């Protein structure tokens, strides 16, 4: 058992018959770690292993039929599955365009607010509201905005004498409409990180650059951007990882249509697992997405030298 010494430190003192306590004392560090390890095992390790196990099996929706081992069969299906290829292409398109626009806007807003309107904290708070909203609320709000007959966007178009558009229904506009909604929600996230990065920049290099006659553009290019590089890397990495998992907006706004133009990987995984009752193949696609995310993140971190 633990006993308090005169100097206030805790010392172990054995008692006759206290075998369990002695064992607990000897293994205290493991006992203290156990809750964390068990939680990790239950919430991360077990589901991941189970997903690997499911991915190499064909799982019938009939519970009386045994799981059939198919080895790499589910992964081989990825090569010939046209719907998977469409979803992959759409996911890449969405990720590249949405994250790029969010980054440019977020950085631009941060530079603007940091330099010119630093004191307007109210405006900063307002800009962050979209990020705080639940994704489902954002999706429903944009669905109402895009509604072709009664939506506010088409009402504005009508009043301006412009042709009405099927924002979420037109094959050429649907992905654009989803990107706009995502940009609206997540630009504040980039903005917030950039603002924090800008606030922590050292003043001296800028003073020295000003004395040397460097223009604002030169200062931004040679000082601000390099200083911000670690923050930019983290912001882009988090957004790319999140964009690869896009689901809510597509599910509510378009359901993957029209003509498969907005079908993304997460939606396809959901359909395969729950609509087509093929969880083995869904697990294989999920592992593919996980693999791509890990490879992309590692490459990106190395490229941006964040670890330095």
């Amino acid at each position, binding site marked *: 058992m633990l006993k308090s010494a005169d100097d206030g430190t805790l010392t172990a003192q054995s008692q006759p018959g206290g075998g369990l306590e002695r064992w607990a004392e000897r293994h205290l560090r493991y006992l203290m770690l156990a809750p964390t390890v068990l939680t990790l095992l239950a919430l991360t390790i077990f589901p991941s292993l189970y997903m690997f196990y499911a991915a190499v099996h064909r799982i019938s929706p009939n519970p009386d039929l045994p799981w059939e081992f198919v080895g790499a069969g589910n992964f081989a299906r990825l090569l010939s599955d046209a719907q998977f290829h469409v979803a992959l292409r759409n996911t890449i398109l969405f990720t590249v365009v949405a994250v790029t626009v969010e980054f440019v806007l977020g950085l631009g807003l941060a530079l603007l607010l940091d330099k010119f309107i630093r004191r307007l904290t109210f405006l900063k708070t307002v800009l962050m509201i979209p990020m705080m909203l639940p994704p489902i609320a954002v999706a429903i709000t944009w669905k109402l905005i895009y509604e072709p007959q009664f939506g506010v966007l088409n009402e504005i178009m009508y009043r301006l004498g412009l042709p009405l558009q099927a924002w979420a229904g*037109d094959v050429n506009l649907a992905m654009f409409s989803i990107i706009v909604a995502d940009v609206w929600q997540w630009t504040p996230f980039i903005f917030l990180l950039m603002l924090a990065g800008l606030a922590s920049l050292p003043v001296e290099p800028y003073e020295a650059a000003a004395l040397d006659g460097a223009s604002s553009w030169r200062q931004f290019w040679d000082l601000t951007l390099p200083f911000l590089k670690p923050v930019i890397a983290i912001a882009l990495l988090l957004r790319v990882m999140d964009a690869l998992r896009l689901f809510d907006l597509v599910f509510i706004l378009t359901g993957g*249509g029209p003509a498969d133009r907005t079908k993304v990987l997460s939606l396809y995984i959901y359909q395969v697992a729950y*609509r087509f009752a093929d969880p083995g193949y869904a697990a294989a696609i999920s592992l593919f997405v996980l693999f791509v995310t890990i490879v992309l993140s590692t490459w990106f971190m190395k490229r941006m030298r964040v670890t330095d």
Partner: protein
Amino acid sequence: MVRKLFLTLAAAASALAISGAAWADITVLVPSGSEGDGLRAAAADYAKMKGTKVETVQAPYANVFEQAANAGATKSGVFDIVLMDDPWIPFFAENGHLEDLTPYFKNAGLEGPDNDFLSKSLAICRNPYNSGPYVCLPYVGNAQMFFFDAAKYKEAGVEAPKTWDDVLKASKTLTEGGGGRYFGYVFRGGQGNPVVADFMPIFWSYGADLFNADRSKVTIDTPEGAAAMKMFMALRDVSPKGVESYNANEVGTALAAGTSASSINWPNWVATFEDPSQSKMVGKISYTAIPAGTKPGSSEIGHWTMGIMSASKNKQEAFDFMLWATSPEQIKISAERGNPPVRASVFTDPELTKQEKFRHYPVLMEAIQASTPRPRHPKWPEIENAFGIELSKAVAGTITPEEALKNSQAAVEQITGLK
């Protein structure tokens, strides 16, 4: 102190939420909307009358299928009864998720459901279709009808549309005169279930079908299919812009707001169209049978049916509830709550038919009896998805109608393994 109290309350609330269903004698999974609301109200009545606690779990349309499929695959027994859309029946029945009702009828001293049920309503509850044992009982008698604004059609020179050519003629005139704000026709063009559901009646009207009679061959890419597709594309051209993303709500709103003159629709929308608080078209919408093409028109049947999950631990109680809920008295109450009936006696009940809001009953009863079920295949959700993608592409104009038929044929052949 406050923190402790908060934590205790949170834990208690979570425990209550998780075990809520376990308190019930029977747990029923129902969809959102009038069908689920009706059965939920019936469950409350049953609890009062019989003292049996019936818990209803309500979920959006697609989630009902997913939750029931999960419960079936894991044999969880969390649901005793599921209120199913009829095309799901082969999936649930052929994967062993549904209980054969034959022994329960025998125990009750019955040979099966009584003859007051419409024959087409009963046929879908047998698996295989119309020949196998009963695996469910019909509860909501949905079958599509043709909804149209008779005054507008008359203005366009068509008294009552009998054929798709009539519909196209009137719709073309109305859309051309609508200035981009009014349209002659509207349909559910959304990818997947919506576009397939609104195409199938047209497909059938031209003598086409997805499979041949013994389901040994896929028959989408045929001259009959091409004729149906040609009409579908012509109707698309007189529909609102963006129809390729429309689902039931958009179509219903277009009719209720009086911005479109006609559509194929489901009878549970009648209550909305006849409700002054939700519709500008009260008393103005007429209901008729699905128009003919080269063959007589046929509605798509879309009944909501109650089946007992095989893993249920309360099967007898579940059967008793189902038998009670589908009795003539209860189906009448359900009809008054806005759900189309499945019994002839309720369809012809003078107390109902004399009311304006039930004026569509004769047409609906005829529509059910002339209806066609969606192809009865355990992989129907996957087939519908593949067919729906190609139809959506054709509606959006990214591929030609011919390509849509050819691609659909190939996709369904691959899914079903038929050549």
